[in-house]
């Protein structure tokens, strides 16, 4: 009887901006593996016309790409089936956060990577910190850019190893100015927006802290070996944390940011995360757009691996707190009220009521 294949190991090279050298370092590792006799192929590689990177790929077996037609244009993408047939020990896959061409079997490249891992293939891949879902609002605040292509945090948690690809902002700006990263006309624009030195420094600090967090999460407890708490408390895996977070879902657009923030706090506190929408039974048929918005938010929550429910009740604060209490919730996350006159009264009222009804819990009003 054949055993199910061992799941492949996932290594993610994490950078903080385009041009930080993620692909280069990943290919460097692949070359070293090859020199040790490991069977390694390149599953997908995006050269972006960078000479150094292209040279690094030389001598490595490159899997042909798959051609897909979409709206009259031909797109090239990773050929996952071909890689499965070739079945290497290690496969190198560029741009983990990439969105596949519509009509592909899977929407995101990271889903293809999961398929490779399931088949027992080790994968080396890379992404930038700004693609991490829970950082989306923080990245917007820093850079003024809303990143559209995101990867849920739990996907990053699947990695066996996350490695920081570090370079100083100045070196990055130099590369940009010399046209190594982008073609000159594009570089000019990039320099003005995303790549201001202070932005880069902030993104870099976030990436360093994220990786420190990832490293901490993966530390195993060893019986008889003390944990060193001088810099970071020991992690408590498998929900030994007593904290439980509940997020209030509403039709309002701020719910997305609220969910992202709660997800992030839950991950850092090792807390469970729940979300709930209170459908007011007396209000009858809610407006169609509101229904759609709520469904979108509930789906989004589930994508972030947040357990999302619909509650019925005539009084949102009461229903929410009752649900919280029944589920051992310790922290309730709500969005900051928008201060239109009407809304303000309603929302403030809601926050006060929750505080009053749940004196045993913490209420967090998130700056969305």
């Amino acid at each position, binding site marked *: 009887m054949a055993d199910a294949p061992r799941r492949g190991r996932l290594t993610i090279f994490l950078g903080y901006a385009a041009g930080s050298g993620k692909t280069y370092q990943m290919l460097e590792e692949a070359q070293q593996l090859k020199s040790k006799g490991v069977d390694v192929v390149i599953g997908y590689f995006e050269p972006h016309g960078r000479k150094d990177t292209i040279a690094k790929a030389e001598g490595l077996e490159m899997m042909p790409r798959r051609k897909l037609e979409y709206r009259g244009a031909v797109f090239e993408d990773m050929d996952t089936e071909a890689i499965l047939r070739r079945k290497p020990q290690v496969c190198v896959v560029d741009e983990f956060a990439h969105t596949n061409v519509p009509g592909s079997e899977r929407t995101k490249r990271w889903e293809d990577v999961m398929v490779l891992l399931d088949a027992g293939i080790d994968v080396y891949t890379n992404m930038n910190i700004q693609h991490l879902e829970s950082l989306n609002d923080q990245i917007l605040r*820093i850079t003024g850019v809303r990143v559209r292509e995101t990867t849920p945090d739990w996907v990053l948690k699947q990695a066996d190893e996350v*490695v*920081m690809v570090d370079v*100083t902002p100045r070196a990055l700006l130099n590369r940009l100015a010399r046209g190594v990263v982008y073609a000159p006309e594009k570089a000019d624009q990039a320099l003005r927006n995303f790549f201001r030195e202070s*932005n880069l420094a902030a993104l*870099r600090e976030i990436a360093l*802290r994220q990786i420190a967090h990832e490293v901490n999460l993966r530390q*195993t407890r060893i019986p008889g070996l003390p944990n060193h708490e001088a810099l970071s408390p020991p992690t408590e895996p498998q929900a030994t944390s007593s904290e439980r977070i509940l997020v209030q879902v509403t039709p309002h657009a701020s719910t997305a940011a609220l969910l992202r923030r709660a997800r992030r706090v839950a991950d850092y506190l090792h807390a469970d995360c729940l979300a709930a929408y209170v459908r007011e039974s007396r209000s009858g048929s809610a407006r169609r757009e509101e229904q759609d918005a709520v469904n979108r938010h509930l789906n989004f929550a589930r994508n972030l691996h947040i357990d999302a429910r619909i509650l019925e009740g005539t009084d949102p604060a009461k229903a929410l707190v009752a649900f919280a209490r029944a589920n051992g919730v310790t922290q309730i996350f709500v969005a900051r009220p928008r201060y239109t006159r009407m809304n303000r009264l309603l929302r403030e009222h809601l926050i006060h009521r929750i505080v009053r009804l749940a004196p045993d819990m913490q209420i*967090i009003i998130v*700056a969305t």
Partner: protein
Amino acid sequence: MTDRRPDPEQLLRQVEWEEALRGRATLKVFLGYASGAGKSFRMLDEGRRRKERGEDVVIAAVQSKLSVNVRQMLERFEVIPPLRFDSAEAIDVSAVLRRCPQVCLVDELAHTNPPESRNRQRWQDVEEILKAGISVLTAVNLHHIQEYKEVVQQITGKEVCDTVPKGFLLRAEEIVVVDIPPEQILERLGQLEERERLVMERRLSELREMALLLAAEVVDHQLESYLQAHGAAAPLVAHEKILVCVTPRSNAHTMIASGLRNAQRFHGELIVIYVRQPGLNPEAQAAIESHLAFAREVGARIVILEDPDPIGAILRFARAHGITQIFIGHSLRRNWRTRIVGDPVDRLIRQAEGIDIRIFPH
């Protein structure tokens, strides 16, 4: 923010900052978390690239144990021979200053010089070289940072002798963390028994976490001085800063403990703020003193302000310092005052744009 007119003093600071950067020699540090991470290689590789771009690069100090990779790289450079004493070697600082290159490569920054040398420590040699206007690329291991000495000794069980003060790294213009998966370092150690391997992995992982956080701290330091020099209106928030507001009546113990846990988990900062209330009775005074004593005990930074408008003072402080979360108590009792002038917590929520508010009922 962008159309804000900078005041002359700010402009001056910015000009000074840029001039200082242009003319001054710079220090760039490659930080690793264990030997074998490839710091020296990265340093030499950068030296090579600079040389190819036409900079005048020399080597003043190399490691004693060299990998083949590194030895091959060394052949491309001009080396200023070190001074040799009975016990050890030291950089020939006078020779470096006489040669006066643009860039000087110095490996093993934490090296202790033999007693006959002009400086006790190699990092002091580097300081001299920098002062002479020569830029330095250097490599150092986390083990050797003075402030981490004890923790590292606890983790590795080995005595650390040679150290560099953290302040020296904080003043570096650039720092790069050389990060590789710990398994690659383990591979080099050869066959290990299972438990031994696990223990080693755990140790490497702890050192790695520390190195990443140290680099984050250095980057944050640079970011702050950059923003100050450029007169940015609001700080860019790259890590969590938690502000716990205490009053005599607040449930301060719970709030500070929760703030501490959050700060630790996020590797952020904890600040406890008290806006002085006039005319406290002795009991309330004692309560506030005990709150602040507890804050001090857990290592929080303490800020005490005098302001007739406590919420306004807290908001101003929070905005100026890039606070990401404000922890505040909320009384369940409604008194005549809140009914007339409005609830202070409401005002905080309304005005604290971009900051999370965490309410602790009391």
